[in-house]
């Protein structure tokens, strides 16, 4: 197992994703002799996990069952332990494409936070790219570094514990792309420019408030960035349902030739459709993209 390469069977030391039900998954660090409690009972790693193919159904002690899935950045995003607010897959997908990330890209990111986006970046830039990520909170920086090692992607990433607004990214002239998710991104725009390749590159800043976006855009203009573009992507999930719509009873049909036809009492039409969830996330953040021209 690795977050950047598939393997078929679960091995000791892997991180597997246990799929309990829709919207309920948990990460499990596989260890010989260990066991994991779930609401369906116990999973014994040595027999239930190790050596089994990913995607297997595992019957737990109480007779319930779960599926064990190969980790992906997308599953990790819904399973990871939150230390901060995180970016979700919808925004991550947009960021990845608009930053033009691909194998070999050199990327700078700040802050690292819980590492949700970091894993997606690493997946995309492997095997030849590199991620320089900056997190000013020491504990978080250490924790995420641990996770990268556990997930076998630490060779692709450098975590720096410093303040990006004061000290920058710790690299200059190397990045193809920059991502900022910090409270005052405008203070880091200069450092971002310095970290980018002379030949140019792409930048993205994620901010929840429009005032942050305005200051960032102004800073980007001042630093000579081009193609400045702010957008927002919202996910809509459609629940597939069979609905049944009753037909009203209009009473006996008087036109029929004297014969009184009794209409069926509880007639209804059923159809397959989708319903939107009662509440959906209406806003995550504005994504501001820009291109650094060649300097």
């Amino acid at each position, binding site marked *: 197992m690795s977050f*950047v390469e*598939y393997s*078929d069977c679960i091995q000791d030391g892997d991180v597997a994703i246990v*799929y309990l039900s829709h919207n309920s998954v948990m990460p499990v660090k596989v260890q010989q*002799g260990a066991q994991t409690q779930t*609401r369906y009972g*116990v999973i*014994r790693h*040595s*027999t*239930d996990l190790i050596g089994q*193919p*990913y*995607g*297997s*159904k595992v*019957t737990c*002690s109480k007779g319930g069952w779960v*599926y064990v*899935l*190969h980790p*992906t*950045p*997308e599953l990790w995003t819904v399973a990871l332990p939150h230390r901060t607010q995180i970016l979700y*897959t*919808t925004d991550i*997908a*947009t960021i*990845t*494409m*608009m930053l*033009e990330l*691909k*194998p070999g890209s050199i990327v700078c990111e700040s802050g690292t936070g819980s590492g949700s986006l970091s894993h*997606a970046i690493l*997946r*995309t830039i*492997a*095997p*030849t790219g590199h991620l320089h990520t900056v997190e000013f909170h020491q504990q978080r920086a250490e924790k995420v570094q641990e996770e990268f090692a556990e997930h076998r992607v630490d060779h692709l990433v450098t975590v720096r514990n410093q303040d990006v607004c004061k000290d920058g990214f710790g690299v200059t002239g190397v990045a193809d792309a920059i991502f900022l998710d910090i409270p005052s991104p405008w203070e880091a725009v200069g450092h971002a420019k310095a970290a980018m*390749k*002379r*030949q*140019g590159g792409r930048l993205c800043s994620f901010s929840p408030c*429009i005032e942050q976006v*305005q200051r960032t855009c102004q800073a980007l203009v001042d630093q000579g960035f081009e193609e400045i573009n*702010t*957008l*927002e*992507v*919202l996910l*809509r999930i*459609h629940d*597939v349902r069979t609905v049944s719509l009753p037909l009203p009873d209009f009473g006996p049909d008087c036109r029929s030739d004297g014969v009184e036809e009794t209409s069926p009492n509880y007639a209804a039409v059923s159809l*397959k459709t*989708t319903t939107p969830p009662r509440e959906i996330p209406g806003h995550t953040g*504005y994504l*501001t993209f820009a291109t650094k*021209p*060649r300097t």
Partner: protein
Amino acid sequence: MADNGDEEYRIQQGDYVVLKRGDIFKAVQIVPKKKIIFEKQWFFLDNAVGNLYSTTFEISSGGILQPQKLKETGNPSDLKEAGTDNRNIVDDGKSQKLTRDDIETLKEQGLKGQEIIQQLIENSSTFRDKTEYAQDKYIKKKKKKYENTVTILKPSCRILAMMYHGREPGKICHLRYDTLAQMLTLANIHAHSKVLVFETCAGLVLGSIMERMGGYGSVIQMYPGGGPVRAGVESFGFPAHFHDTLHEFPICHVNALLAGELDTTAKDPTAEEKLNLAADEEQIQPEAEQQGSPEEQNMETNAAQDQEKIEKEKRREAKAQERKVKLEEKRKKLAAAAALLEGRNADGLVIASRFHPCPVLMTLLKFLAPSRPFVVYSQYKETLIECYTKLKEQGGTVNLRLSDTWLRHYQVLPNRTHPVLLMSGGGGYLLSGTTVAMDQSKPAASQRSEEPAPKRQKVKDTEG
């Protein structure tokens, strides 16, 4: 000064590039002396060769491109005069003193866009009374119309996806770029994986997947009809080795492959037939020609006639030989793709086509390993509802999700920040999920000797 890191950033002969003006894109190849028409203007790309990508060029007379000098910043008019509101601005249709003919004359004189705009401003009686914002808007609008510049970009998934969506949405089943972005992520496309693709989006989806794989791993394109469509892939301008990772397999042989009845060692019978037909046609043609002029034929000497016959024979044979080689190549390719599929251990499946997705999905899912993601795009939600229902009935998948995304752009300017336009509905729908092992009776009572005894017999049910 030689710049070592720059070679890959320079425009070269034969490169596939994207032209840009404003929000309009067009993909072209750099071919010597080829006339390009873009946004109602024609020009040649010869001069662009050797320049750096992302350079903006001015189009001068004769369609020659000149790299633009440092961009003049600021407004053409540095008038700081502006009105506060529009209470006194009357639309009498006479505010512009220049007539259409005047403007045409200015254009013919070869005046630069910037200069024409300046003239328009000077001859507008209401410009000074407009608010600062209205002036800005006026200039932007005129710039869009009169500026004759073009920027040459290196193609990327981002640019091509935006280009196709803007120019030819019909060709890509109205797949909006943010939806494509979701697909690439939900399918966990990355280097060193084996991905199955079925698309009728001009090759845009295929190309995007190849870009994300960076030439590592393999992509198998399942294609309908006579051959795969890859115009969009060309536009990416991938290095040659990327194409070594690309395989193709005709969808019409999928049933045979699944049944284990596909014989890739024998020649493709339909292709064989075509070969024979083609050979027949050629045979008939010369005869027909000969029949057309019997007198002429008689007048010729026999020797010349024989000579001609031999040459024709030779040509025909060479052509047949060529075809045979091509067929052999095709057969080898088919065998290679079949070998990749036979393991039924693909790492991902992406479907985006004008065909009904349900049978495509149900069939191609069989080639996926367990615990692998798949994504189906459809312009219509109803088809995906059907897919969802079928998958639920059949089992073998988890994490099913039917979704779409809204994309909203913002204008961010001092005191003028607001959403630009709402795009909804048109971006298409996605059904995504993960494969799992199909239900099978598990071997009863697995060995648990090496496990420590459960700490507690009763496990508390924790909610959520």
